[in-house]
């Protein structure tokens, strides 16, 4: 980088620098004006004058300061420019060709900056600029060369330029260039380094024919032509794929799988080896999470090429369940739906109802467990649904066996079976049978179950048998070790029928008991077509489109609808921008990577001068900075002048100098509700630093305060968070202190503050949040409490009983549960008469705050353990007693003697 590449826009102004010595002389002879004071003792001063001789001149450094400021002003007016770029050849207009397709989005700011730099240079050379943007515009206009524009207008057009989410149209750009005939043109090409089709060579030739080419490209932070292809759906995983123009060095790219609200649910790194054009990596997520994915993005600069939208094709499938015997079907361990529900629920949305109700909504898979569908409307509807693309999974069973017998006798064919069944069923292994239950054979390669491990322990003891035909093997997805099919399938229209030859419960086989069952069903569901797959021929209107930066927004005006079946074969263009198409509930995604030709690096343009996009000619105007420096110097001069005349205290000068310095961000003190703690009675809690625990405590004390306000005369304001040692604790009658396991020991200031607080009558409720029934909820807090309490003056403690004032301060309580019951609460032994024997510390582990907590919706977000309304009520009552105890001390303790007093009064 040329360090001294400094040039001036108006160099003649620099002659004014010659006047600086004159300025020096002028300043030297003018002393500053004195301050005028009236003073009676002037006579005494007059006699002293011989002591100090008057310096008539301003000191040299002040002069230098002023001359420097003047010099800065002159330099600033001369408009110096640092790192001005080289001039272009030719003398005519500059033709600025900019690739604004998808590949330019990743580093678009750099490109815009480079283009702006070109305009700066053209402006200095006094040349006009013609613009050519090579991608079709948002309104569908083909690329055209603009007329030669004055620089401000070109600047305006350039600032309105946004990257498109489709590829540049080299052929149209070529046609636009053909009409250009201006002598002396120099061409500047801001290239995205991709060919975008076969016309690049002709395009490059057209550029060189017009004039000397300067190509601005290269060394971009984003690899040229990197694009995230639509992910491939595999059985268990989503495979993120990426393509780019082959690079000489290996690269790695981070792909984030994001849900609709922008949270990243998964993260994989795709490694692309040197010289390779593509790479992929599998995203393995639990089905629940995978179903929530809405897009994959490449981490880093946002661009349409780094986004792949996911639609229903990558989503979960609703599964309908229907059993023959509805009453016993749900019975635990015996009903077929019990097993099916267990197997499918984790990753599929399950629905139940009549066939009519189920098919009334979008449904991918319908599972019939030993349900015979007799002729009639039901069967017709089912058949229609299967023809449209539904996946019907049937399980055999006694009813089906019986129906097959009837069907065989009447030689009828059940169209809802993939294969014809033999009458009745086959029993393997039984009291009167020689043969044994049979294990499973390995899955055939063509089966969707291929690759699943076959457990040895699965035995089939009973099944329905398919009529042996030549095609039976093709139709069978799973078979027993003896070759009889276990799962058969048949295609019906766009859909499919699958039959398990055993029951969905454990009556006929061990299959439903094994993990294999779950895996098989999962694979089956993935085989199914997504819901709401629109009918062929439906044209889907563009709903939301990705712009060049990969943000979803309104579709550009040129966007047109796209036929549903054409999605797979349509490359993106201005007419079909990438984005979401179709109605709200069945969006189809069209991605840039769809049908995109492999990105191919553009060959070098012969004879072109190459400028780098990154390290290149970034011009910096120094004028404004010089002007600012000059103003700062003059302000400094003024301050010094004021100080010399005694008008300013030194402190004021220091403040002024500090103000001149750039103001750094002031670290904001953590804003806590400490506005005026003394103005209202309020509870306090000690901040633990664990945001979750502090949130619970805040909610809990708010809930308790509200409860107390409703039921007692006490009026408590919203609770405060306090930090002992920093905040004044004396305003709070009661401090709640939840202990967290990782609590750091108290520092000296905090210890002093807490001890002081306790000795002055404050009460601290220490909660280890894990005793009694909550044993194990907060491991390590007891140890933490020991650690914390070492410096605290804790009096001897006894378990709280119902004779204690705390048990009768407002309600009469026999137990003191919080979120957890049981366990003991510890209070000071009642022999110390200090502070009216009010215990300064109450220690328990019942997580009271959680029991008291009320969230924004007015609910109690934390369940009590073991539970019940009663326990929560008791928790609140304990809280009320606690507040009363804190506010009134042992006042209620005196009431213990009321009977005796009454008796005495009666006498």
């Amino acid at each position, binding site marked *: 980088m040329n360090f001294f590449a400094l040039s001036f826009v108006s160099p003649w102004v620099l002659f004014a620098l010659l006047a600086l010595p004159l300025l020096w002389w002028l300043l030297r002879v003018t*002393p*500053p*004006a*004195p*301050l*005028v*004071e*009236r*003073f*009676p*003792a*002037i*006579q*005494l*001063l*007059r*006699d*002293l*004058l011989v*002591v*100090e001789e*008057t*310096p008539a001149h301003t000191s040299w450094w002040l002069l230098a300061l002023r001359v420097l400021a003047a010099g800065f002003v002159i330099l600033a007016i001369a408009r110096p420019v640092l790192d001005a770029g080289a001039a272009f050849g030719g003398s005519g207009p500059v033709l600025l060709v900019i690739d604004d397709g998808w590949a330019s989005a990743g580093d678009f700011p750099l490109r815009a900056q480079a283009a702006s730099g070109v305009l700066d240079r053209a402006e200095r050379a006094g040349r006009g600029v013609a613009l050519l943007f090579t991608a079709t515009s948002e309104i569908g206009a083909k690329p055209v060369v603009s007329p030669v524009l004055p620089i401000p207008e070109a600047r305006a057009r350039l600032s309105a330029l946004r990257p498109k989410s489709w590829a540049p149209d080299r052929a149209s750009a070529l046609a636009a260039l053909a009409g250009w005939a201006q002598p002396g043109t120099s061409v500047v090409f801001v290239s995205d380094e991709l060919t975008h089709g076969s016309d690049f060579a002709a395009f490059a030739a057209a550029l060189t024919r017009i004039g000397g080419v300067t190509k601005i490209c290269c060394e971009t932070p984003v690899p040229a032509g990197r694009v995230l292809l639509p992910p491939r759906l595999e059985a268990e995983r989503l495979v993120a794929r990426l393509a780019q123009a082959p690079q000489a060095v290996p690269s790695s790219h981070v792909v984030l799988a994001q849900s609709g609200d922008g949270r990243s649910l998964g993260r994989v790194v795709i490694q692309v080896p040197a010289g390779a054009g593509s790479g992929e990596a599998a995203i393995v997520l639990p089905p629940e999470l995978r179903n929530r994915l809405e897009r994959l993005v490449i981490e880093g600069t946002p661009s349409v090429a780094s986004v792949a939208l996911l639609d229903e094709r990558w989503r979960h499938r609703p599964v309908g369940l229907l059993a023959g015997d509805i009453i016993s079907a749900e019975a635990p361990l015996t009903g077929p739906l019990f097993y099916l529900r267990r197997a499918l629920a984790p990753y599929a949305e399950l629905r139940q109802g009549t066939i009519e109700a189920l098919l009334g909504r979008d449904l991918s898979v319908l599972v019939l467990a030993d349900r015979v569908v007799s002729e009639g409307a039901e069967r017709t509807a089912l058949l229609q649904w299967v023809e449209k693309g539904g996946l019907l999974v049937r399980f055999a069973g006694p009813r089906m066996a019986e129906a097959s017998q009837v069907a065989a006798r009447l030689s009828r064919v059940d169209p809802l079976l993939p294969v014809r069944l033999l009458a009745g069923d086959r029993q393997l292994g039984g009291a009167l049978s020689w043969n044994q239950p049979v294990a499973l054979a390995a899955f055939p390669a063509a089966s969707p179950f291929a690759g699943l491990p076959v457990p040895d322990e699965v035995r089939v003891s009973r099944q329905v048998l398919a009529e042996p035909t030549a095609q039976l093997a093709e139709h069978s997805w799973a078979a027993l070790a003896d070759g009889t099919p276990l799962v058969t399938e048949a295609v019906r229209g766009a859909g499919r029928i699958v039959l398990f030859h055993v029951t969905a419960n454990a009556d006929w086989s061990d299959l439903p008991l094994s993990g294999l069952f779950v895996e098989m069903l999962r694979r089956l569901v993935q085989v199914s077509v997504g819901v709401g797959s629109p009918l062929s021929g439906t044209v889907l209107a563009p709903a939301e489109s990705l712009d060049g930066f990969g943000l979803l927004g309104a579709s550009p005006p040129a966007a047109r609808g796209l036929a549903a079946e054409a999605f797979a074969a349509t490359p993106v263009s201005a007419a079909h921008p990438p984005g979401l198409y179709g109605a709200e509930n069945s969006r189809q995604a069209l991605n840039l990577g769809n049908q995109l030709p492999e990105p191919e690096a553009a060959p070098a343009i012969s004879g072109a001068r190459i400028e780098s996009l990154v390290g290149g000619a970034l011009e910096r105007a120094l004028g404004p900075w010089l002007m600012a420096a000059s103003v700062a110097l003059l302000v400094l001069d003024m301050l010094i002048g004021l*100080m*010399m*005349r*005694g*008008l300013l205290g030194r402190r004021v000068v220091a403040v002024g100098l500090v103000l001149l310095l750039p103001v750094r961000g002031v670290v904001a003190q953590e804003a806590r509700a400490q506005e005026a703690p003394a103005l209202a009675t309020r509870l306090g809690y000690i901040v633990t630093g664990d945001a979750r625990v502090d949130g619970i405590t805040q909610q809990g004390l708010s809930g308790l305060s509200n409860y107390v306000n409703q039921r007692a005369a006490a009026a408590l304001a919203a609770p405060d968070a306090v930090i002992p040692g920093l905040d004044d604790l004396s305003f709070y009658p009661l401090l709640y202190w939840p202990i967290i396991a990782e609590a750091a020991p108290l520092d000296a200031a905090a210890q002093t503050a807490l001890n002081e607080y306790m000795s002055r009558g404050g009460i601290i409720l220490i909660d280890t949040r894990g005793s009694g029934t909550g044993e194990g909820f907060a491991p390590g807090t007891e140890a933490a409490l020991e650690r914390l309490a070492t410096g605290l003056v804790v009096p001897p403690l006894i378990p709280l009983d119902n004779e204690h004032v705390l048990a009768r301060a407002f309600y009469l309580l026999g137990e003191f549960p919080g979120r957890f019951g049981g366990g003991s609460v510890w209070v000071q032994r009642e022999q110390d008469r200090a502070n009216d024997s009010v215990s300064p510390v109450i220690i328990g582990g019942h997580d009271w705050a959680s029991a008291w907590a009320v969230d924004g919706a007015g609910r109690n977000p934390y369940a009590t353990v073991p539970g019940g309304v009663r326990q929560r009520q008791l928790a609140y009552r304990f809280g009320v007693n606690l507040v009363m105890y804190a506010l009134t001390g042992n006042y209620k303790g005196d009431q213990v003697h009321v009977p005796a007093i009454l008796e005495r009064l009666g006498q």
Partner: protein
Amino acid sequence: MADALIHPWVFARRAEALGARLPPLMVAAERVAATVAEGVHGRRRVGLGDSFWQFRPFLPGDEARRIDWRKSAKSDRAFVRETEWEVAQTVFLWADASASMRWHSHAAAVEKRERAEILLLALALLLLRGGERVVLMRPGARALSGRVGLEQLAGELLEGDDEGVGLPPRVNLPRHARVVLFGDFLAPLTEIQSEIGRLASVPVSGHAVQILDPAEALLPYAGRVRFEGLEREAPLLIPRVDVLREAYAEKLAAQQDGLRAICGAAGFGFAVHRTDHVPEAALLALYAALATR
């Protein structure tokens, strides 16, 4: 200081203005005097007078007729009745009214002249309460006594708007009279010495209180300052006042030492009072000094 040529209307206006200023001045003086009167008990000493002072045992040498028989009859010893010394003395008071006294700096709230007047009146109040007579040191002034005397004194004090030269006027004083002078005493020492010496030759004794503004005492200015006098002195431009501060302090100390020496030689007491200090302290010291002499 009645000027017969002044139009009666003008005179009335001036009296009105004085009346407006008088009560606060009186109040301030009384407030200052009240604190002192409680601290010091007048001239409570044995002397010629009517009021009873004390009984003391009869000592050889006492005249026998001085024995108080009524008292002595109560015991075996003879007691002598002593009366309090009561003698009315005339105290001449003067406050500098020159232009240089009508000034205060930012550091002080009151003008030097106002402070001088307050001190003068408060002292007069104390003296009048003690039965003394006070006279303003001014040609034609009358000796005043009693509560009414104080008000007359205040009226006379405010009436006199003379642009003095910063030194007491030449008034015929009785021998051995007491004189109290309030002023800034910034005039050249030789002038002051001639004036004090003239007083001492009468002979009279008394006190001089130098009243200074804190700015005069400390010279708190800095930087390039043009000083202008208040008594038509030529202005003085000083480039860096802060450099001069120490030299000024020495100069002022020399002036005060000179004053102290002049006063000491003439049998006068000398004290310095700064207007940012409370007047009570100065008054107490002054009154105590007057009482003991």
